[in-house]
């Protein structure tokens, strides 16, 4: 990359208004790639953990039985949010049918399957420096032996509440309320300046 690294202090005034691309300061690689996955379907599921067997065949995966963990089948993610709360990520559009199927399957139990596709944004972060970037605003132990693929946590990133998913050594997902996305994105770009970053252009819905 021939492009010179812009003087970050010059961007101070417009903190959080950084461009969508920031080359690595030393012209090397190792930056972060941000990809917006917000259009995927999302279902907030409230139910007792013991109903897993009843809905596993609809979900394609069992409810995570461990705290702070995620179960996966293909694109689907079932994210543990609490003792009786889960977030299900599915292909765009699948959430409507899934919610009604689950509701009927659990009709006899106390439960709630609420579509939150538009309420939550989902960002993918890839790159060797991803843990260092997150650590600037997240107090969790993000060491690659402690926060590993298949783990998740609801926590704070700077002043935004987020759900953090580890997809691999250098790959994470951040889920936050859409109203916070602008702030979260601005914060992430700013934190990633040190390593350089690239925001994948939005594919239209």
């Amino acid at each position: 990359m021939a492009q010179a690294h812009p003087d970050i202090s010059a961007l101070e005034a417009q903190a959080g208004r950084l461009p969508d691309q920031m080359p690595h300061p030393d012209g090397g690689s190792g930056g972060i790639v941000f990809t917006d996955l917000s259009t995927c379907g999302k279902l907030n599921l409230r139910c007792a953990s013991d109903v897993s067997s009843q809905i596993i065949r609809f979900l394609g995966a069992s409810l995570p039985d461990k705290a702070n963990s995620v179960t996966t089948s293909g694109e689907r993610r079932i994210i543990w949010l609490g003792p009786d709360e889960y977030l299900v990520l599915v292909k765009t559009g699948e959430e409507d049918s899934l919610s009604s199927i689950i509701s009927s399957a659990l009709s006899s139990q106390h439960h709630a399957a609420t579509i939150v596709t538009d309420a939550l944004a989902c960002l993918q972060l890839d790159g060797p420096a991803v843990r260092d970037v997150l650590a600037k605003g997240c107090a969790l132990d993000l060491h690659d032996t402690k926060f590993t693929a298949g783990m998740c946590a609801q926590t704070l990133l700077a002043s935004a509440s987020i759900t953090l998913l580890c997809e691999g050594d250098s790959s994470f997902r951040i889920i936050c309320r859409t109203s916070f996305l602008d702030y979260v994105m601005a914060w992430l770009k700013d934190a990633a300046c040190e390593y350089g970053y690239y925001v994948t252009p939005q594919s239209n819905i």
Partner: protein
Amino acid sequence: MSSQRYRLSGGTTIRTDTPLSFTFDGKSYHGYKGDTLASALIAAGVHLIGRSFKYHRPRGIMSAGSEEPNALVRVGTGAYAEPNLKATQVELYDGLIATSQNRFPSLKYDVGSINSVMSQFLPAGFYYKTFMWPASFWMTYEHFIRNAAGLGKVASDPIDPERYEKTHRHCEILIAGGGGAGLMAAYQAALSGQRVMLVDEQAEFGGWLLSDDAVKIDNMPAYDWVREMQSLLSNMDNVTLLPRTTMFGYGDHNYITLAERVTDHLSPRPSHLPRMRLWKVRVAQVILATGCIERPLVFGGNDLPGVMLASAVQSYITQYGALPGSRAIIVTNNDTAYQAALAFQNAGGFVRAIVDTRTTVKGAWVKAAKDAGIDILSGHGLTGAYGIHHVGRVEISPITADGREITGEAVHMDCDLVMMSGGLTPTVHLHSQARGKLVWDEKHLCFKPGATHEAEQSIGACNGSFALSSGLAEAIRAATKAVKSTGGTCTALSVPDVTALRINYAPMAYWKAPSQAGAGQGPKAFVDFQNDVTSADIQLAVREGYQSVEHVKRYTTTGMATDQGKTSNMNALGILADALGHEIPDVGTTTFRMPYTPTSMGMIAGRDIGGLFDAVRLTRMDSWHRAAGAKFEHVGQWMRAWYYRHDGETMEQAVTREVLAARTTAGLLDASTLGKIDVRGKDAATFLDRIYTNKFSSLAVGKCRYGLMLKDDGMVMDDGVTTRLADEHYHMTTTTGGAAGVLDWMEEWLQTEWPELDVFLTSVTEQWSVATLSGPHARAILEAADISVDLSDTAFPFMSMKQGYVSGLPARIFRISFTGELSYEINVPARYGVALWTALMKAGEAFGITPYGTEAMHVLRAEKGFIIVGQETDGTVTPLDLGMNWIVSKKKPDFIGKRALERTSMADPKRKQLVGLRTDNPDDVIPEGAHAVLDPNQPPPIDMLGHVTSSYASPNLGYSIAMALLKGGHKLIGETVWIPMLDGQKPIKAVVTDTVFYDAQGDRLNGTSSS
């Protein structure tokens, strides 16, 4: 351009292959990579560095570390300037610009030094005793005092151009201090594979070993051993090495804060790196190896440039290769200074004499000094140092064995350097910050760590173990113990063998030199150098009854300068104990607090400034509003369109246009920020009946109802419209600001008080984009926007909800109204927000649809007398105060706040109640917040009825309207009140009215009637 006249060959950290140039007070000098500003100045023979705080006395360099009280400078220029930096801590870089402080016109000739002459009239606490007459003059006196005080000046250009960052870490073992013990502990701990962090405030690891030319570890020079350890550690990927990093804070549950200086030593500074980085580390086991600090001796003139700590002189010689003088007098109460004396002589200096306060001196080092032909004056004290801008002569007197009395004539000697050693003070700050206890060590005359509170251990000199060998042994023990307690394993290494002359370290209690002059007379003997606190000041404080350590500290300001008393606290304590006739441990010590050394505020702020200071929340239609020229208003974290300004419009004109449109044609509001909560479960109805003051179990499916929520003290908390989507399923809306609070509030009751209720709550605020279409043409516009549901009053009555499509977008349409007009709130999945908005604008174009903001919304609802929680209420208002008794169920046995409303105070006739106000002059718009009174001519304090909560010019009514909370307001309706103005204008006259100003019958809700 001056040469480095006092530069020696060697210097363990000096890189002569990298010369650097810098300026001090405009004069340029040279130094090398590895220098500090202090060492480079010493190498250049510069010893006058600054002026003291109170007396503006000339000051030089006393130490070689962060304990430096004297050598404070301003570094950098313009926006990069930073005051009060310790020259001993500033790493030299090419082009460094340093300036002396607290002097005028120049460092050498400072008018402030008049205070030194006046000093007899300025004892400790003098300002408490005068400047009181005449009373009105204090501010004038103070003006001069303020200007005399303070040290450096801040940057002229206020905006800091540099970047600061923060980061979080977790590790099993953190070691503070990278000297011999610290390195040893780090290596031992690292062998376990546990995550280890080693931090040191200096640029290089090694601590005292960088200055110790006489010790061998495993038969190699100490410095080589340091390098070996360092390379071992840097090759282990479970180890994080942080030089230039100060552990400044030790918080609860081993929450450790570190300050890393990332680029301060670089030139130029890479723009992508932060200047400093704050590390917030949660640690399982902390090991403190922070070493010790040498104490100065207290004698007249001990603050002169050229009077230095003996250990510092040794550091400048051995670590930095800079010779601080040519003819030295050493004065000491212990053995350690002998090594420094020899180092000085070996470096080519001439040791005039070693003045030792002890009557009998013996041991290996004493012998070595004698063998080197150095005169030793035992049983003597240095009782005065003299010179103008530098020490030139000292007075040496024979003293009694206890050091309190002078026994004979003084001798005088010339010199250009005094090397003093008053003994060693373990650096127990962090242990104390961690709420560890301190215990008195009588042999070593110091406090050392006692019982711990957090999971931490102290090793080496900071633990009172001054001998390197015992420090290394403690390091191995502590590290293995720490590893074990973090669930790891490692086999203990054998202690490296240390070869050095044995020091029998047992200092003599000698807290201040006796003086040839009478009490309070003779040259000043300083205890706290920077704050100019003398031994006489401490004795004065005691005479005046300020006798607890804290009183002495606060009365004399000893220990309160930017060096935080690192060199002065123990001497002050010793002198205080003497004055009180107590033992030191009975006098006690002050507890240490964060920070260990002064810590950059820019770093602590980090990136939480500017646009990132706090989160901002945006709706999906935000970009449309901006494009349409909207001005925004902060509501909580949300940005809401306040009003849309057309070219040439004032705010008033814009708002008037929007308000009129909503009543004559149609207005469109982005209501997406309203809180939305999905309430489900078989007990949903029961739950809502307990949360709201009114009934929701009786609400039919598909119907909407306005509800009011109270706190348990009966005060209004929030309001909103809730709709029954199904038997066991409600859609609740809240105020924009209250959304989060209401959800938390309801969760709290569910989880803590009513766990038996089967109810799930899910926030869906952002799931829906909401456009509120309001006005007589609302129905027509929706039809034009090809809505799929029958909008007729019979099919779709007021306060009901229908699902369908608007312009092909799936929608929930609520027929509710906050304006009093025919009104629909259209909810679509948030992603369709802009699509819906533009579709409605297009469909409404022919009907004169007009987007309106929150300001117009406020006017419209005020015309109808609708309240806004947070504006008409402030946490002290009940539904009855608002005249909303109709919404408080009498039938329900209980709901949150019911019991509170039955308290005697709630029936008090003087409670403030919500009423309307109509001004006598229709054009008078009462300022919101103004207070109504019955008699404006009453002299203050005037009896107030209460304040105006909302006030607007009403374009639809053609006169101004207002709402107010007035004492006994409901009984005042019809009465005349006055509203006094701030700016001396005459009070506004108004009549108390009902709160509904417009369309009291509510005909307009169906859009048919015209008025």
